[in-house]
């Protein structure tokens, strides 16, 4: 952001279009609007990692990467405009970053042969690659998240949560309702009681819900929140003195900006996650040297190591690795979106690979196959320390209940396949 606007303008006019060989990664970011606080770090991380690859390695397999950013403001209609504006220059993969835009783009991108990666959001049943050929949601989805919460509760209760009470505080929208079915199934299986507490958008006023929590005294509260709902919920939990360590959010309710407004009261709050946190990874030193210090950071450069920055960087890493895989499979450096799709379908992330990239144990190891576009759904748990203002991983990535989730995914994707006449394509 240190480039001058005027010089940028001149440069854009002179350059007259990108060099043909560039690999284009569109970034549908939301740096404005009600959810900007979440969109800024994600987009910074996504951009910075590609800048690092360009500066340090000369791109992916020797081909430079170009990130075209398009502002959606988390608005579906603007997302459509962004998609239509960028789909022409052979985009490698779309990260729509909003449930609304994802549902919007699933049929479009599939028809256009462009892959999509919805990491930890979007349509959960897209894990079934047999039906959703161009949509990937590795390494974990919402239902994994729900199961991860329950698994963690099992873990801290020595495997028995029979008779416990779990309250789900959720954003009253399609996103917030995602975990309900999974949690209902799991409550039957493990014998815990589930209390549902919807919060209407935007969620600034949650007194009713928290009074109910105070009356019913659930043993644990889990939250599917977004935007202002997160900050208010954590503040209200602190207000009624609900024990923070029994309050577990989904990964979209577990970033720095969600807990910081509540100050010291948020200490001990937990959130499930599918990637590691903090900046104790060698890759951040490279980012500091090649990107931040060189003045090439996408944002102000102050977000490095934030949960959502890491998530954006992780998404970029997975995209870059998939592109490398695609280059290997097809034996060409100049890959098309279709080849990229094949690369994503053959992606394998191992511990060695991540260590070589300077990100040891940054996320779970997994392997994508034709039938499984969602990875193995490994979920860990983070905890917030208000004193040092850091998140730390307190429970490592562990497998989720594939039995329960698998059945739900099969059911939902079969319905989608029947509705849209999709043939089975995996052998």
């Amino acid at each position, binding site marked *: *952001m*240190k*480039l*001058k*606007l*005027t010089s940028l303008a001149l440069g854009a006019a002179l350059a007259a279009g990108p060099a043909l060989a560039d690999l284009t990664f569109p970034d549908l970011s939301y*740096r*404005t*609007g*009600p959810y*900007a*606080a979440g969109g*800024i770090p994600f987009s910074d991380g996504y951009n910075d990692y590609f800048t690092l690859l360009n500066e340090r390695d000369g791109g992916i397999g020797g081909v430079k990467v170009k990130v075209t950013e398009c502002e959606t403001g988390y608005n579906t209609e603007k997302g459509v405009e962004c998609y239509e504006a960028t789909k022409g220059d052979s985009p490698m993969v779309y990260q729509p970053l909003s449930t609304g835009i994802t549902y919007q783009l699933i049929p479009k991108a599939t028809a256009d042969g462009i892959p999509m990666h919805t990491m930890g959001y979007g349509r959960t049943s897209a894990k079934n690659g047999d039906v959703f050929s161009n949509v990937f949601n590795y390494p974990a989805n919402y239902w994994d998240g729900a199961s991860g919460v329950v698994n963690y509760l099992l873990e801290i209760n020595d495997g028995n949560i029979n008779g416990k009470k779990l309250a789900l505080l959720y954003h*009253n929208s399609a996103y917030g309702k995602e975990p309900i079915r999974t949690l209902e199934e799991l409550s039957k299986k493990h014998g815990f009681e589930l209390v*549902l*507490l*919807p*919060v*209407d958008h*935007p969620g*600034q*006023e949650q*007194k*009713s*819900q*928290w*009074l*109910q929590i*105070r*009356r019913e005294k659930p043993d644990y509260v889990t939250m599917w929140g977004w*935007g*202002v709902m997160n*900050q*208010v919920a954590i*503040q*209200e939990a*602190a*207000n*009624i*003195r609900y024990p923070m360590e029994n309050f577990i959010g989904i990964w979209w309710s577990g970033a720095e*900006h969600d807990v*910081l*407004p509540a*100050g010291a*009261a948020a200490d001990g709050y937990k959130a499930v996650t599918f990637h590691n946190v903090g900046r104790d990874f060698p890759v951040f030193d490279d980012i500091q040297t090649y990107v931040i210090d060189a003045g090439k950071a996408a944002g*102000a450069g102050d977000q490095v190591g934030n949960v959502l920055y890491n998530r954006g960087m992780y998404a970029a890493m997975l995209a870059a690795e998939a592109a490398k895989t695609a280059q290997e499979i097809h034996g060409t450096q100049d890959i098309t979106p279709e080849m990229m799709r094949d690369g994503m379908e053959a992606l394998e992330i191992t511990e060695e690979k991540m260590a070589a990239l300077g990100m040891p144990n940054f996320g779970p190891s997994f392997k994508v196959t034709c039938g499984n576009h969602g990875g193995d759904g490994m979920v860990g748990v983070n905890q917030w320390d208000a004193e040092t203002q850091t998140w730390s991983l307190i429970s490592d990535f562990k497998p989720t209940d594939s039995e329960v989730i698998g059945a739900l995914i099969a059911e939902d994707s079969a319905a989608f396949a029947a509705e849209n006449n999709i043939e089975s394509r995996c052998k």
Partner: protein
Amino acid sequence: MSDQFVFAMEVTLNGLMAGVLYALVALGFVLIYKASGIFNFAQGVMALFAAMTLVGIMNGQVPFSHLINATFGTDLHDFGWHLPALLAILLTVGVMVLLAWGVQRFVFSHLVGQEPIILFMATIGLAYFLEGLADLMWGSEIKTLNVCLFGESGCLPQGINETIDAVTYEWFGYGFFIDNLDITATIVAAVLVAALIAFSQYTKQGRALRAVADDHQAALSVGISLNFIWILVWSLAGFVALVAGIMWGAKSGVQFSLSLIALKALPVLMLGGFTSIPGAIVGGLIIGVGEKLFEFAIGAPFLGGATENWFAYVLALVFLVFRPQGLFGEKIIERV
């Protein structure tokens, strides 16, 4: 006494408190509507703008830093100081007065005598403008708001009130939850309303204000400067917006969604009438209690919850069918 009854009492008390917070936002609308007939759609955005300005000034943030950095390649972020809250509040009030002057000078002085719908539309434009301006000036991240009036003390309290908890436990065997922030908001609102009433009853400007509210033409003809009164009214509304912004921002951090609190004030306005300050307070209380009790008794157990948003409007609608001008609104007399 049954548990349900005790719980209902707790819910009612909390509803009253929430109602006060709604009323705080509604007050700003009423002030401007009464004096100038403008339905100020930008009131919510003004609260956001005021709160962002307050945090920005307190933390010594450089305004427009992102834009400046992008244009000139500099690396400015903050001035490196941290102002005491009291001083920052005063400075923010100054900014809001300046804003009021600007609004009057550049917008409404050109629209004197226009129909209400056109004035309303101008406030729509103003809302867009302020929203963009606030983001450009201070950035769109969430900012933590921590107002402490005297250095480290006199901070906005948050969390359960221990005394009420203990006393009610003694009485009913169940400690009531009342948020300290809500109690503070109630006190602030009471002081604010008392001050506004005192101002409009006992000062020259206040009397001029009421004269203008009664009849523009007559006020003009006795030599009251409409221009000055309107700047005054917009400043007052800006100040109320700041108070509302602080109270709501303390809970959620200062962020874009603050501008949506206007939606919570609309049913209050309907119920209380657009022209009445006591109406805004009583309306707020009725809406607060009504929506919380409905959610408690019917919404959550039978309808699956999250009924508050629409119930507030339906409640107001039912009242309106019987009193089309709101509870305290001026009686609508229609002549042909």
